[in-house]
């Protein structure tokens, strides 16, 4: 059990030392699209976590049978199928959630973190480790999204999750924060801080 939560375990390391966004610089595109407010950032982070975990498990189970030359296609098909089925089920049984998620479905399928983890981890490791790895990377991604979403919503709208935090009576909202470019600048700052704390050379 102690191994499960050690710094190097597939579950914990992506949260900090091996963060998919801050260290591997994956998934930047969606970090840009959904972080202007906190709520979509959280929703997107959780969806990616769930999908990464499941697709990692499936690919890990199939890994010995997948022909090497078409492995990327197989991975893509698995991810796309999974996302489509999940969105269909949601549409039938949780319509409100599915309406909220509809925008993200395409973004999840093409998220490079998914492909990256499938290719780098699930193809070589067993289902259980792969599941942990998927959850860990999804949460690591969610963490960055939440930080960026937090900063952008707070200063861009003066609200958090829709509740007014900085009263509009004296706080003039910063329109720059709402612009997509700002999310890249904030991600850049997060990576900077992350490297300053952890030391770049340790790798």
């Amino acid at each position, binding site marked *: 059990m102690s191994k499960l939560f050690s710094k190097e375990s597939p579950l914990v390391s992506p949260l900090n030392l091996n963060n998919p966004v801050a260290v591997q610089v994956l998934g930047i595109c969606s970090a840009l699209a959904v972080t202007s407010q906190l709520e979509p950032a959280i929703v997107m982070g959780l969806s990616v976590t769930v999908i990464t975990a499941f697709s990692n498990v499936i690919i890990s189970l199939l890994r010995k049978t997948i*022909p090497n*030359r078409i492995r990327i296609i197989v991975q893509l098909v698995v991810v796309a199928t999974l996302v489509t089925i999940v969105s269909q089920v949601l549409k039938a049984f949780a319509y409100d959630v599915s309406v909220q998620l*509809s925008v993200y479905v395409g973004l999840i399928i093409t998220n490079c973190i998914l492909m990256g983890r499938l290719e780098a981890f699930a193809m070589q490791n067993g289902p259980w480790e792969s599941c942990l790895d998927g959850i860990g990377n999804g949460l690591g991604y969610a963490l960055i999204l939440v930080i960026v979403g937090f900063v952008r919503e707070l200063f861009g709208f003066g609200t958090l999750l829709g509740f007014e935090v900085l009263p509009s009576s004296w706080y003039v909202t910063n329109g720059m924060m*709402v612009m997509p470019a700002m999310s890249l600048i904030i991600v850049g700052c997060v990576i900077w801080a992350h490297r300053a704390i952890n030391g770049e050379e340790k790798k």
Partner: protein
Amino acid sequence: MAKKFKCNICGQTFEADSMPDKCPICMADSSNIEEVVEASAENKPAKKKGLDTNSNVYTIVYAAVMVIIVAFLLAFVSSSLKDIQEANVLRDTKNQILLSLNIEGLEGQAIDDKYAEVITSEKELNGNKYYMANVDGAVKYVFPVKGRGLWGGLWGYLSVDEDMLHTFGAYFGHESETAGLGARINERWFQQQFTGAPIFDAEGNIALTVVKAGAKSADYEIDGVTGATLTSNGVAAMVNGGLNVFGDIIKVAPCASAPEAEVEEVAAECADSLQAEVENN
């Protein structure tokens, strides 16, 4: 059986029955000689245990089987859930129409019941559907509108007072606008700005529109969403275009040419005469 050996000094390989004392080619010491393990002889039997996952046949069969399985799976999921999904979509549409009439907070069966109670009839104008509603005794028109946003389609419902002078409420939906920006047209604070907004400008033209947030200069201009100018423009075009589609109902010829001061009166008359016409039909 002869074994293969390789000399690490001269790089030559040669055959011998057992490890020689010296390399027969360069005469180097036996410590520099290694036995070469035949890769093919060792590995071939192992490979035959499993399928050769790199062969063309395997790859093609694998791809074909995968596609068939996935196709069946998706078709099965899609068709088995279709009825429930359609019911959800229908109910959602009803809810959207109710939202445009500022009736909020309903869920499940309550939506169907309220819809049946409020919407009195569905009518058509030149092939475009619209709805008549009765909210607490007041007659309202609900006009469906369609348009284009930044990334995809927009749609909405505009409810209008019986006298056709002001909008009563609005609902907007979108296919794929940017979350947190354009997607905010879906939020109630934006839609509620349409409650009580005048439709006509001083010249009697349909003028209701959406402008950049904060740039509002007349009552018929609605504040757009900050940071989502293109989506807001899409909403403006959709609202304005949509009202013009139903222009025959909303305004009749005299309204447009009426002098400024009489606009409201004339528009009201137009609406009355039209209302009478509609009822006669």
